């Protein structure tokens, strides 16, 4: 649906990435999208401090970082239901989007996975999707994150029905997935 209008200028976005060039790429993408409030962290420890001290509208977290990876950081974020960013939407960016890592991302409470380097249109689509969707949040002993029963909701306009194909995708846990395949496991 072309011509949709968006204004991400007021969104406060946390970006966590240990790769300085990947961080530069992400910063330029967000600048181009009109985001003026970006907090950049080069690692999980710095990100944890930022998440304790400020409230964000979105976090874009690198999946592969040396000390604590993005999956563990997302799990940490979902630990404290009283935390100011407990329900913060998280987009995990990974250079290795296998179905195993996509499933790990879902299990740690991420909202979406995108393949690195991120394509601006893909990131904007994810942001718009989150903005337009009322998604419940689950707190249980075994899972804390966006309601994964989301798949029982009607598909949004423009989305293809791919549930049968998803079964095939998760049967090949190591294969690198295309961004479309990654999306289908989250939709």
């Amino acid at each position, binding site marked *: 649906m072309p011509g949709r209008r968006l204004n991400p200028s007021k969104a406060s976005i946390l970006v966590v990435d240990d790769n300085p060039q990947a961080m530069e790429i992400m910063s*330029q993408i967000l600048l*181009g999208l009109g985001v003026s409030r970006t907090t950049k962290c080069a690692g999980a420890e710095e990100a944890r401090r930022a998440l304790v001290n400020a409230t964000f509208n979105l976090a874009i977290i690198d999946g592969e970082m040396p000390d604590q990876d993005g999956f563990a950081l997302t799990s940490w974020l979902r630990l404290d239901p009283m935390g100011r960013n407990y329900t913060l939407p998280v987009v995990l960016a990974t250079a*290795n989007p296998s179905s195993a890592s996509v499933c790990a991302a879902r299990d740690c409470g991420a909202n979406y996975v995108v393949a690195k380097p991120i394509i601006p249109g893909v990131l*904007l689509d994810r942001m718009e999707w*989150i903005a337009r969707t009322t998604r419940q949040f689950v707190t249980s002993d075994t899972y804390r994150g966006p309601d994964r029963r989301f798949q029982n909701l009607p598909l949004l306009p423009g989305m293809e029905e791919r549930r049968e194909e998803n079964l095939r995708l998760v049967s090949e846990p190591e294969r690198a997935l295309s961004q479309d395949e990654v999306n289908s496991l989250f939709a």
Partner: protein
Amino acid sequence: MPAARVFTPKNRLAGILGDASDPTREALAARAERNLEAIKPRTQTYLRGRLKQIEALAALEEDALAVRREVMAALALEVCETGAAADMVMVGEAARALYILLTASAPWHGEAVRLHCRTLALLASTDLPGAEIESLLGRLRTVRRHVGVAD
């Protein structure tokens, strides 16, 4: 059994939905693409630096290379994460293949690592036809499978 709590949190991104006075998503994405284009030379320089480091590691003796497995994996990951933004998509793919090989819980195979490094260097320095690149990457996949690394 404790019950799960299900609730609807405030939509933190609802504020980005615009009105007629705001730019279209296409205009925003195009502006971001232009920004990426502007930093492409920097990204390419960064990538070439990382590729040189990988090449230097690949030239080491077997034992020295094996000890630096994690260093090489980190470099391969950096190339993989930024390749496409430097118009070096297939270099990024070859780097991803090297990263998978180096981080898999499989026995060390120095020759397989060197073969991946040579392919990476070849793709970075030569403009090969798409079919040939696919064939090279396919052969690397076969090599990985033979040394017990699933893709």
